[in-house]
C-alpha cells in the first residue's frame, strides 16, 4: 500500500466514525423534538440526555480531525475545496456552532423552552444535509476553473437531482442509524416504553433509507458514468451491505438482540461507505483533483503517519474507558445513580 492510499484510508475511516456518531446525535435531537410535539417527550428525553451529555464534544472532534487531516495529507484540497466551499461550509459551521453551544447551555446551564428543542431538532436534519453537499460536489460537473481559480456553479448544483437525492439519503440515514442505536440503548436501560417507540421509528425509517440509497446509484449513472461503472465492479460489497441491512431489520422486527442489530447496521454502512470510497478512487474532485496530484511531500506524510500511530495509542484506551464508563455501564445507563457535576 502506498502512502497516498494509507492517508486516505485513515481519513475515510475517521469520516465514517463521524458519520455514525454524529448521526446518532443528530437523530436523537430530532426524535426529541418530534416527541415533544406529539406529547411523548417523557419517554425519550432521559435516554437521549444520558447518552449525549458525556460524548457530544468527542463527536465534534471527529469532524475536526477529518478536515485538519485532509489538509495535512492532501494540501491541494485546501485550495480547491477551500475556495468553493466558502458558503456551504460556513452555513454548516453556523448550524454546528448554534447546536453545540446551545446543547451545552441547556444541559449544564439553565433549562430553555420548547422553541429551543424544536430548533435543536431541526438543525439535526439541516447539518447532515448541508455537509452532504460536499459529496455531490466531489462527483464533478459543478466546478469550473476560471483564470486558474475554481468556481462553484450554485444554480446547476441546486437544479441537480443528484444533489437532492444525496440530501435525502443523508436525512433518512441519520434517522435510521439513530433510531436503531437508541432502540438498543433504551433496551439496555430497561426502559420498555422507549424501546418500543424507538423500535417503531427504526422500522419506519428502514425502507426510505434503503430506497434513497439505491436511488443514488441510479442518479450517478446519469451524472458520472465512470464512477457508476466502478461501483458496479464492486457490486458484491453493496450486495453484502444489503444483506446486512435485511438482517438488521429482521432482528428488530422479531425483537431479537438489539445490540447485534446495531453491530450489523454499522457493518452495513461501513461496507457501503467504503465501496463508495473505493469506487471514487483516485479522485477527490472529479476530474480536477486526485489523491496523487494533491498529495503532500514524503517527509510530511511519514511524520503524519507516525503522529497518527502515536496518537492512536493514546486515543484508543481513552475511548475504551469512556465507552466502558458510560455506554456499557449498566448502572449509568439505567440511571440508578446520579453523577451530576
Amino acid at each position, binding site marked *: 500500500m502506498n502512502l497516498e492510499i494509507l492517508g486516505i484510508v485513515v481519513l475515510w475511516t475517521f469520516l465514517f466514525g463521524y458519520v455514525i456518531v454524529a448521526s446518532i446525535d443528530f437523530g436523537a435531537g430530532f426524535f426529541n423534538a418530534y416527541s415533544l410535539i406529539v406529547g411523548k417527550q417523557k419517554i425519550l428525553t432521559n435516554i437521549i440526555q444520558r447518552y449525549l451529555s458525556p460524548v457530544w464534544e468527542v463527536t465534534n472532534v471527529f469532524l475536526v480531525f477529518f478536515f485538519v487531516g485532509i489538509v495535512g495529507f492532501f494540501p491541494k484540497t485546501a485550495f480547491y475545496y477551500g475556495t468553493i466551499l466558502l458558503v456551504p461550509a460556513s452555513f454548516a459551521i453556523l448550524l454546528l456552532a448554534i447546536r453545540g453551544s446551545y446543547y451545552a447551555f441547556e444541559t449544564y446551564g439553565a433549562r430553555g423552552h420548547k422553541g429551543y428543542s424544536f430548533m435543536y431538532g431541526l438543525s439535526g436534519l439541516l447539518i447532515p444535509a448541508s455537509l452532504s453537499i460536499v459529496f455531490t460536489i466531489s462527483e464533478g460537473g459543478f466546478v469550473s476553473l476560471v483564470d486558474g481559480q475554481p468556481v462553484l456553479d450554485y444554480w446547476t448544483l441546486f437544479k441537480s437531482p443528484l444533489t437532492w437525492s444525496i440530501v435525502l439519503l443523508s436525512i433518512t440515514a441519520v434517522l435510521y442509524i439513530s433510531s436503531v442505536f437508541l432502540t438498543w440503548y433504551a433496551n439496555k436501560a430497561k426502559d420498555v416504553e422507549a424501546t418500543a417507540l424507538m423500535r417503531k421509528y427504526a422500522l419506519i425509517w428502514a425502507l426510505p433509507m434503503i430506497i434513497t440509497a439505491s436511488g443514488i446509484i441510479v442518479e450517478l449513472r446519469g451524472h458520472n458514468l465512470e464512477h457508476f461503472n466502478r461501483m458496479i465492479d464492486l457490486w458484491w460489497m453493496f450486495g453484502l451491505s444489503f444483506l446486512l441491512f435485511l438482517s438488521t431489520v429482521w432482528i428488530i422486527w422479531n425483537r431479537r438482540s438489539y445490540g447485534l442489530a446495531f453491530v450489523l447496521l454499522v457493518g452495513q454502512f461501513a461496507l457501503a461507505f467504503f465501496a463508495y470510497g473505493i469506487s471514487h478512487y483516485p479522485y477527490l474532485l472529479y476530474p480536477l483533483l486526485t489523491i496523487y496530484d494533491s498529495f503532500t*511531500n514524503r517527509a510530511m506524510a511519514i511524520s503524519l503517519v507516525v503522529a497518527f500511530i502515536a496518537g492512536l495509542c493514546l486515543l484508543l484506551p481513552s475511548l475504551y474507558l469512556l465507552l466502558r464508563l458510560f455506554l456499557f455501564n449498566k448502572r449509568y445507563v439505567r440511571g440508578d445513580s446520579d453523577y451530576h457535576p
Partner: protein
Amino acid sequence: MLNEDALFYSRVLTELTLSFHIIYATIGVGVPLMIMIAQWVGIKKNDEHYILLARRWTRGFVITVAVGVVTGTAIGLQLSLLWPNFMELAGHVIALPLFMETFAFFFEAIFLGIYLYTWDRFENQRKHLLLLIPVAIGASFSAVFITMVNAFMNAPQGFEIMNGELVNINPLVAMFNPAMPTKVAHVVATAYMTAAFILASIAAFRLLRGSNHIYHKKALFLTMKLGLIFSIATAVIGDFSGKYLAEYQPEKLAAAEWHFETEENAPLILYGVLDDGEVKYAFKIPSALSILAHGFPSSEVVGLDQFADDEIPPLSIHYMFDIMVTIGVWMVILSLVFWLGTRRGWAFIQTKWYRWLIVLGGPLSVIAIEAGWWLAEVGRQPWVLRGVMRTAEAATSSNQVDKMLILFAGLYLILGIGSIVVLSRMFRRNPVEREIEDRKAEKGGATS
C-alpha cells in the same frame, strides 16, 4: 489575480473569529489547571471549601469550553475557506502540529466527559483528580501546538523554494523554529495568568456584593497568589519575546517601539501619539530599548530605516504594545501588594476600592491578551508567512466573504451574550451558601 474585496473581508473575518475564539480558548487552557490546583489543595488540607470551588469552577468551565469548541471548529475550517493558498503551502510544511492538535482535543474532550460525570463515583477523591490531569494536559497542549503553527508563520523554516516548488521539507525543523520557545511559553503563561485573574475577579465581586463567606476569601487568596506567579512569569518571558524579535523580526520590534533610525543607546518610547510621523507626548527612557533588545545599553538596535516601505508593519501596533505591557506590569504590582498585604495584615487590601481593582483585573487581562495578539499578528503584516508569502497572495478569490462576515458576526454576538447569560444565571440560582448547606445535609446521613 487579486480580489481586493475578498482580501479585505477575509482579514476582517479572520480578525473577528480569532479575537473571539481567543477569549474562550484562553479560559479553556488556564481554568483546568486552576481547578486541578483547587481540588488538590482541598484534598490535601481536607477542606470542603476548595473541593466545592473546584466543582463550581468546573460547571462554569463547561460552558466556556463549549463556545471554545464551536468557535475553534469555525476557525479551523475558515483557515482553509479564507486563506486557501496559505493553507495549501502550510499543509505541506506545518501540518504536523496542526494534526497533533486534534489529538490533544480528543484527549481533552474524552476525559472532560468522564471527569464531569464522575464527581461522586469514587470513594477516593484522588482518583477523580487523576482524571483531570489529561484534561489539563490536553488543553495546554492544544495551545502549544497551535502556537507552534503561529510561530512558524513568524519565522518560517524547514523548507526551500526552488523554481516555485517546495523542496527539502523537514516538518520537525519547521515546528521547532526560532519563534517557538518564547511564543509558546508566553502564550501558555498568559493563559494561566488570565484564568487566575478572571477567577479572582469573580471572588472579589462576590465579596463586594455582600457575601462575606470565608469560601470567597479562600478563593480570592488562592487565585491572586497563582496570578502573581504567572504574571511574573509572563513579564519575564515577555522580555525574552522582545529579545527574540530584535534578533529575528527587527521590523516588528522597530514598528512597535517607533524606532525609526538604527542606532546604539536606543531610547525606549512609552505611550505618546504619532502625528505626521512625529512622536508627541511620549516618555523617553534613554538606552532602555537597547537593554530590552540585547541586554546592553550600548548595543545597536535595527530601525525602520533598514526596511523597504512596503515591508513595514502598521505603526499603530505601538499602542497595542503599550496596552499589553502596562497591564502586565500593573497586574504584577496589584497581586504582589495583595499577597504581601494578606501576610502582613495591611487593612487597605480589604477595602472596597481595592476589591474593585481586583474585579477589573480579569477583564484587563483579557484585554492584554487581545492587544498582544493584535501586536503579534498585525506586526507581521504585510506577510502571512514572513518573507515567503504576502497576506494578499493568500486570500480566497470568492466574492461572498462579506456576507459570511455578517453571518459570523451575528453568530458571535449570540454566543457571547448566550454564554454570559447562562453563566450568570447558573451561579445566581445556586449560590455558594446554599450549596454548602446542601452538602452538609448530604454528608449528615441521607445519601442522594
